[in-house]
C-alpha cells in the first residue's frame, strides 16, 4: 500500500514547514532559515528573563517549534526529520534567544541531541553566555539497569518541562532554580507509548514496520522504530490499563495521590480516540485512588503519522500545578 503525503520535495519539507509556521503566527515567532531555528517575536520578547531553548529532530510537531511563545520556549531548533540539529544551529539559537540572564536548554535523551546540545552549550559558555541543561528521560519502555547505556529516551514529558519551566522563567526564576525545577519535573514523570500502525518517512512509500491486525507495538519511542514487544490488540480500556500500569508502579502512585496527565497522540490518532483513552485513563487511575489534577489531551509529541498514543503521568506537586495553570500563548498551546 503506497502512502500519500502533502509534500513538494522531501528535501525542502522542514524548511517549507518553518516558513508556513511563521506565516501562520507572525505575531508569535520568527523562523530563521539558515541556520534553521525559530525564535520568539511577540511584544515581550525583549524583556529580561532566562531564555528557554529546546529542539531535536523534526517529525515530532508541534514539538518544539509549536511551543515557542509567551510562557514556554524562547527558541526551538529543528533538525532534519528524526535527526538532531547541528551544534552550530543550536549555538545560533542560543544566541538569538539569550536576553542576558542565561539560557536553559531542554534536551530529550538521545545520543545525537545530547552530544550536539552539549557542544553548543560549551561554545556558548566560551562566549560568555550562562547555560544550564535539563535532560528529559521519561520513557519507561527503555528503562534499563544497563550501566553506561544510553538510558531512558526522552518523550512527551518534555511538554510538561517546557510548560512548567517556561512559566517559572516568565515569573523571573533564576537559571539555577530553573535547572533544579526542570530536574524535579523529569524525576516526577514517566511515559509509555504504543503504536496501532507505524509511521512513514517523508517521501517513502512504505511504513517503518508492519503490524499484524491482531497486535499492537508496545513501548514504542517517537522515531518510528520498533517498540519493546508486541501485545494483543484489544478494547481501549485494556490497552490504556496495560500502558498505564507500569507508570503508576514506577512512580509509586496510590490512594490520595494526584497527577497531571498527558494523553498524547503520536500523529494520526483521532481526537475522538484520544478522548476515549483519557476516559479510560481516568477510570484506571480512579481505581487506584489516584486523582487527575490537570489533563492535556491531543497530538503534542508526534512520530510523523504514527497511529498510536502515549500516556505521561506527572506527580501533581502544588508548585507544578500552579505553574501549569500560568498563562501560555504559543501556536500549539494557549490558555
Amino acid at each position, binding site marked *: 500500500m503506497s502512502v500519500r503525503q502533502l509534500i513538494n520535495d522531501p528535501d525542502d519539507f522542514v524548511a517549507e514547514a518553518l516558513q508556513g509556521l511563521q506565516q501562520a503566527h507572525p505575531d508569535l515567532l520568527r523562523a530563521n532559515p539558515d*541556520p534553521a531555528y525559530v525564535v520568539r517575536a511577540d511584544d515581550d520578547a525583549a524583556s529580561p528573563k532566562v531564555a528557554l531553548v529546546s529542539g531535536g529532530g523534526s517529525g515530532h510537531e508541534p514539538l518544539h517549534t509549536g511551543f515557542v511563545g509567551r510562557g514556554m520556549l524562547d527558541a526551538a531548533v529543528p*533538525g*532534519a526529520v528524526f*535527526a*538532531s*540539529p*547541528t*551544534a*552550530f*544551529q543550536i549555538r545560533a539559537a542560543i544566541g538569538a534567544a539569550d536576553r542576558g540572564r542565561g539560557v536553559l536548554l531542554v534536551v530529550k535523551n538521545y*545520543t*545525537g541531541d545530547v*552530544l*550536539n546540545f*552539549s*557542544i553548543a552549550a*560549551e*561554545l556558548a559558555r566560551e562566549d560568555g553566555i550562562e547555560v544550564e541543561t535539563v535532560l528529559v528521560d521519561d520513557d519507561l519502555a527503555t528503562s534499563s539497569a544497563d550501566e*553506561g547505556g544510553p538510558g531512558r529516551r526522552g518523550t512527551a514529558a518534555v511538554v510538561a518541562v517546557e510548560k512548567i519551566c517556561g512559566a517559572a522563567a516568565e515569573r523571573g526564576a533564576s537559571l539555577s532554580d530553573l535547572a533544579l525545577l526542570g530536574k524535579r519535573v523529569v524525576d516526577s514523570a514517566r511515559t509509555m507509548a504504543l503504536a496501532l500502525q507505524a509511521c512513514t518517512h517523508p517521501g517513502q512509500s512504505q511504513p517503518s514496520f508492519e503490524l499484524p491486525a491482531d497486535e499492537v507495538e508496545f513501548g514504542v519511542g517517537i522515531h518510528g522504530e520498533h517498540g519493546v514487544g508486541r501485545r494483543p490488540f484489544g478494547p481501549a480500556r485494556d490497552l490504556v490499563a496495560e500502558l498505564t500500569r507500569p507508570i503508576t508502579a514506577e512512580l509509586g502512585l496510590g490512594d490520595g495521590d494526584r497527577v497531571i496527565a498527558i494523553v498524547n497522540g503520536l500523529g494520526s490518532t483521532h481526537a475522538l480516540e484520544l478522548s476515549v483513552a483519557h476516559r479510560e485513563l481516568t477510570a484506571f487511575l480512579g481505581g487506584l485512588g489516584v486523582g487527575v489534577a490537570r489533563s492535556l489531551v491531543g497530538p503534542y509529541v508526534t512520530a510523523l503519522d504514527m497511529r498510536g498514543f502515549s500516556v505521561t503521568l506527572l506527580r501533581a506537586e502544588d508548585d507544578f500545578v500552579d505553574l501549569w495553570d500560568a498563562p501560555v500563548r504559543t501556536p500549539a498551546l494557549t490558555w
Partner: protein
Amino acid sequence: MQSLTAEDARSWIDRFTADIDDRFADLTDLDRRAGDGDYGTNLRSALRRASANLEAGPTDSPEAVFTAVANGFLNTGGTSGPLFGMWFREFAKAFAAATTAEAVATGAANAAAVVQRLGKAEVGHKTMVDAMVPAAEALSAAVGEGTDLPGALRSAATAAHEGAESTEQLLARRGRASYVGEHARGVVDPGALTVAWFFDAAVSVTAPA
C-alpha cells in the same frame, strides 16, 4: 622542518579530504557491518562543508585552516561529525599560540581529551578515541625525545594505525557499533581508521617519501 606553515596545513587537509573521497565507500562498508551504514557519506559531506569554508577563507594560518575544518564538521549532524569538529577545534586553538611539533602534540592531547569527555569514551570502547589517544601519546613522547615535526607525525600515524587495528577484535562499548553487539567483532572502527588516515595525510605532506 620545524613548524607547520599555512600552506602545510592546507595541503594536509586537502590530502586528507582527497583520501576520504577515494575511500569513503570502504568506511561506509565498515559502518554497514558494525553500525548503520552512513558513516562514510556523513564524513564526506562534513569535509565538503570544510572545503567550502576553506575556499571562502581566510586560510593564512594553520589556526584559520583548522578552524574552517572544525566549523564544517560542527555544521554536520549526527555524533561523529560534531566530535570530529571539536577535535579539529583543539588543533586550531593550539596553533593560535604556535605551530611547532610541541603545538601539534598539545593540540592532539587536548583534542583527544575533549572527544573523550563529550563522547564519554575510553580507549578500548571501539571508537575514534582508540586511535586519537595513542596518536596524542606518541606525539608527546616524540616531542619529549626531541624528534622533529615530520618524525613526530610519523610516530602519531603509526600509533593511530595500531590503535585502529586494535579495535578489530573489540566489542563496542560506545557509538553505533555498541548497538549491534557481537556483529561488530572483526570490524575495524571506521572512526579510528579515519584518524589514522588523517595522520597519514600529515606524513605525506610533511615528509614525502
